[in-house]
């Protein structure tokens, strides 16, 4: 029998082919086989094998994601939701299946709570403009933390300036942990929203968001969780967290760039005005006024990133086939290895030493500027990020201009971390 020309079944076929291959007899991940799924990891850079330690910026893509994108454009490309022809129907089905996969992945009670955006940044801006625009007024406060990514700072500065609300900031200590005592003063009946990251991209700190959400709710505030870093490393459960909004990006969890997610509590989304106007987000348009569509479509104006969403669905399948707990376990072992290995480098100081942290090794060197280190590591095939990591307030807090950041993913190895340590000796030698 011919296979039906739908994308979904072929993805399923690939998924079922995977487990078993990727695990050894004891059920542990076989890292060599896992790495073979990521073609880019086999690359050379400047004649050296690539050591990719820039995963907090973006992760590499496994074959099932690459092949899904390829297959979509080869076989199933059409605009969604308004076509009556067969290919449009296939594309629509695949797009909506991806939405269901996202919903299941984050344990959303309904796929109507899952809005496709271009990424974390757009997700946060959507909430700031739509919810913030409708709900904030002078005297209200939005509470963020000192460790936020710029994309969870600037949208709030903009909407506060527009509405007359003010922005308050939870401080961090020398380890890069929230100073929780400050909440007694900062979280008040004036607080309308707590917007906070679950995991810092610059420090690796994991924040105790469950208890923060409880405290914020008790104070009558809504909570937005920036899960850009936590979704790839920890996995999230929006019902367990009980958050009101949660944002993440596909490209940091093995998916394509240009696709992201905003989860919103359904009743809240229903009460919110549209963010962008255009096609798809309306029920009826008349020249004297329009009637808006229901969530999630109300917030998805225009043709969405169809291929991106379907690719994200494939990425989520991939993550689920590995198992988020196995990923977290493997990364914890790598982080411990890296912390110890870097600890043995004289003149290196880790920035971000929280008791709860994941996947990020940010550091400064007393013998070289981060930029020099990054450039010399690059010549050795080692890809790290240097700079402020879109978290300038964190750099200011630690009174440093920049850090070198090695950020890990499940496919990294102890050997790669050792290469980084050796690479740093070359930095010392040249400096």
């Amino acid at each position, binding site marked *: 029998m011919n296979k039906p020309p739908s994308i979904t079944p072929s993805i399923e076929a690939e998924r079922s082919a995977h487990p078993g291959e990727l695990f050894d007899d004891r059920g542990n991940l076989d890292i060599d086989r896992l790495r073979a799924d990521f073609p880019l990891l086999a690359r050379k850079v400047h004649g050296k094998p690539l050591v990719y330690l820039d995963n907090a910026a973006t992760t590499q893509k496994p074959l099932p994601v690459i092949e899904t994108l390829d297959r979509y454009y080869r076989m199933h490309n059409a605009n969604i939701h308004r076509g009556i022809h067969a290919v449009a129907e296939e594309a629509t089905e695949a797009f909506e299946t991806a939405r269901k996969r996202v919903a299941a992945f984050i344990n959303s009670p309904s796929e109507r709570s899952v809005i496709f955006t271009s990424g974390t940044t757009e997700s946060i801006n959507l909430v700031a403009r739509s919810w913030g625009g409708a709900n904030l007024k002078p005297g209200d406060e939005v509470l963020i933390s000192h460790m936020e990514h710029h994309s969870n700072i600037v949208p709030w500065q903009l909407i506060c300036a527009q509405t007359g609300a003010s922005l308050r900031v939870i401080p961090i200590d020398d380890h890069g942990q929230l100073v929780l005592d400050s909440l007694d003063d900062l979280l008040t009946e004036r607080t309308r929203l707590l917007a906070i990251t679950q995991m810092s991209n610059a420090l690796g700190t994991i924040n105790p968001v469950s208890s923060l959400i409880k405290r914020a709710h008790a104070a009558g505030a809504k909570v937005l969780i920036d899960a850009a870093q936590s979704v790839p490393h920890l996995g999230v459960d929006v019902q367990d967290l009980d958050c009101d909004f949660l944002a993440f990006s596909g490209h940091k969890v093995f998916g394509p760039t240009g696709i992201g997610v905003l989860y919103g509590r359904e009743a809240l989304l229903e009460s919110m005005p549209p963010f962008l106007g255009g096609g798809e987000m309306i029920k009826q348009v008349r020249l004297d006024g329009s009637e808006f569509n229901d969530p999630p479509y109300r917030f998805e104006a225009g043709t969405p990133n169809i291929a991106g969403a379907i690719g994200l669905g494939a990425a989520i399948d991939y993550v689920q086939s590995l198992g988020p707990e196995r990923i977290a376990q493997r990364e914890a072992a790598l982080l411990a290895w890296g912390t110890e290995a870097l600890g043995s480098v004289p003149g290196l100081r880790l920035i971000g030493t929280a008791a709860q942290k994941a996947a990020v090794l940010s550091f400064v060197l007393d013998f070289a*500027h981060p930029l020099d280190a990054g*450039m010399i590591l690059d010549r050795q095939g080692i890809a790290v990020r240097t700079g402020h990591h879109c978290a300038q307030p964190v750099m200011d807090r630690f009174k440093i201009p920049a850090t070198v950041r090695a950020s890990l993913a499940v496919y990294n190895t102890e050997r790669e971390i050792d290469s980084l340590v050796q690479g740093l000796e070359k930095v010392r030698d*040249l400096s």
Partner: protein
Amino acid sequence: MTITQHDAAEELVEAFALLGDWEERYRFIIDLGRRLEPLDESLKIEAHRVHGCQSTVYLVPRIQSGDPPIIDFQAQSDAAIVNGLIAILRRIYADRPAPEVLAFDAHGLLKRLGLDEHLSPTRRNGLHEMVKRIQSLARRAMESAADADARPSSC
């Protein structure tokens, strides 16, 4: 002006040709940077800051008016490789007549030195911005010289 711009460029090309792998090149560049005259702390002000670099770069113009004006500058970064790139720029651009500064093909030279990858504006090492800054210094110096010429003589 001791040697011509052309000779300075050729000297650099010859020096780089003797260097082997990237390591020797970086060592050489860093060494050039070490010999840079340090910038006085009082000159490290926002007006002299060159943005577009991950390191902190200050570039202080020193222009001698005349016909043509002579472009000179002092610059410094807190990163060693960037200081080396500054030293290379000084060899090409410092103490040169403005028209020469404007006519010089920086990209061509850096390509011959194997450093053109550093000239990309996306590399964030400041080289691109520094070249732009030096060229605009030269352009402005030429314009004010032309303005002075156009002014009616005060007799």
